[in-house]
């Protein structure tokens, strides 16, 4: 068993009286691709937002590399090496493709420098180009993001998430709204990324992740229903009942 990178300890999250997440404890192993699945309303997005620091849990703790990161600000997550891509594309619409990634790579070298010309930060510029090449957008580097197709914007978002050289990459429904070709490109990219770092993704379409991930976590009504290898999940009666039975 490889080491644990992220530990979720008895995490709950309430919205008023509604218990979106109830007492979830789960460990994520380093260098694995884990998918979080569940039917609509299972609490996947809430769980994702809790893991990525967008929402603080109502109770319970989250440990990253053994350190408690519960309730830290969003930017502190990024600096510790946790990056995320959003379900709804979140990029800098009016900036160029290259500038989007360059802003992200710049974070490691300059955050409050108000005097050095940024054209002199060659490292950030080169890294941004390398990332664009990786996700297949280098040819579009000077275009305004608003002009890109949806799938291209998703790829851009992943380049931005990778800019901080994250140890843990969190992805919220990375293939949402994509065409079949875009989806298969994205799945190939995710598989390649997962070879280099820990990836946790939330996915609604269970079939997509079955062949891709090392481990599955199934949520249902805000609770942890099952976890295990794709094989074990496929044969789990309860999962079949609540999820697979629906098609």
């Amino acid at each position, binding site marked *: 068993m490889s080491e644990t990178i992220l530990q979720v300890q008895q995490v709950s999250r309430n919205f008023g009286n509604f218990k979106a997440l109830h007492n979830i404890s789960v460990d994520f192993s380093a260098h694995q691709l884990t998918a979080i699945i569940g039917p609509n309303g299972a609490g996947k997005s809430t769980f994702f937002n809790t893991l*990525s620091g*967008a929402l603080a849990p109502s109770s319970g703790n989250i440990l990253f590399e053994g350190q408690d990161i519960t309730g830290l*600000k*969003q*930017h502190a*997550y*990024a*600096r510790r090496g946790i*990056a*995320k891509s*959003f379900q709804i594309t*979140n*990029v*800098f*619409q*009016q*900036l160029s493709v290259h*500038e989007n990634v*360059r*802003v*992200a790579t*710049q*974070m*490691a*070298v*300059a*955050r*409050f*420098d*108000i*005097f*050095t*010309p*940024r*054209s002199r*930060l060659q490292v*950030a510029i080169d890294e941004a180009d390398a990332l664009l090449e990786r996700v297949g957008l280098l040819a579009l580097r*000077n275009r305004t993001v608003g002009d890109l197709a949806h799938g291209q914007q998703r790829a851009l978002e992943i380049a*931005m*998430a990778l*800019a*901080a050289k994250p140890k843990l990459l969190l992805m919220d429904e990375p293939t949402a709204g994509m065409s079949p070709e875009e989806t298969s490109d994205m799945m190939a990219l995710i598989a390649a990324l997962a070879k280099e770092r820990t990836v946790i993704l939330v996915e609604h379409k269970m079939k997509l992740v079955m062949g891709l991930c090392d481990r599955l976590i199934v949520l249902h009504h805000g609770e942890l229903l099952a976890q295990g290898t794709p094989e074990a999940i496929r044969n789990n009666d309860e999962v079949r009942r609540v999820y697979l039975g629906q098609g």
Partner: protein
Amino acid sequence: MNLQSIFNAIARHRVAAVLLLLLVFPLLMPYEALAANILIFGLFAVGFNLVFGYTGLLSFGHASFLGVGSYLTGIAMVHFGLHWLPALGVGVLAALAAGLVVGYLAIRTRGIYFSMVTLALGQIIYYVFYKSERWTGGENGLRGIQATPLDVGPLHLDFLNPTTKYYVIWLFVALALWLVSRLLASPFGAVIEAIRENEKRAAACGYDVAKSKLLIFVISAGICGLAGGLRALHLSVVPVDSLHYLQSGQAVMMCLLGGMGTFFGPFVGAAVFLYLEDLVTNLTKYWMAVVGLLFMGLVLFFPRGIWGTLVHLLKRHAASAGEHAP
């Protein structure tokens, strides 16, 4: 394209271009006081634009920083007998401090709430100065600001000579514009634009959004404070309405007229606004109605503003000519 290459050269050396224009500017204006006024309000609008156009925060309290800069420069001279040069420093420091307090309280809110909090805090500052009659002259404004001449080598800088006054103000505006230009080209300049475009993503990239907003707010306040201090020297008085929210609204108008989020835009806006004010007040006392109509027309039909539209047209022209700007 020829026009394009000229435009590119201006864009590359934007500060030099503005300063060159401003150097001969008094010759183009009906009188020097108007030219100096445009310099001062141009700087005020540029400072405001850092927060409004570049960071995407609509502050309705920026008159506070203009006013605090004016008053504290004036108070340092009138009540403490300071020379105008250090007094200007006092004004800028006071504006920075005011920016820190207002910014600290306001950046916790977003959107319309941010605008309302800055408006409310601005009006509180207005009333504090309005009521502190002993120090500020209250309703009558602070009077009796007299700048003693300064000798720099062979230069004798006497504010009684309007041309000298213009060029001294020009020097400070030049320095401030250069600093703003450096800031906009810096890594931090990219961070504030990223925050304007998408705050969530900027935070996910690892940028401390609250701290970045506060920093740009304070810098913006300092620039506006410098404009205020220069205005006190220019007018020899500080009118109490320089702190009023109507003055904050004017900064918004100037930015929108010229083009928010562009370097030149606010300056162009300030120049057009003040020139029209000067021109139309001679014809009718309802000059605000005329400017108001022009303003509405521009916002409706040229939402990028005068300078912003020009930049946009030239860029489109370049794109259709097949030239690809890097």
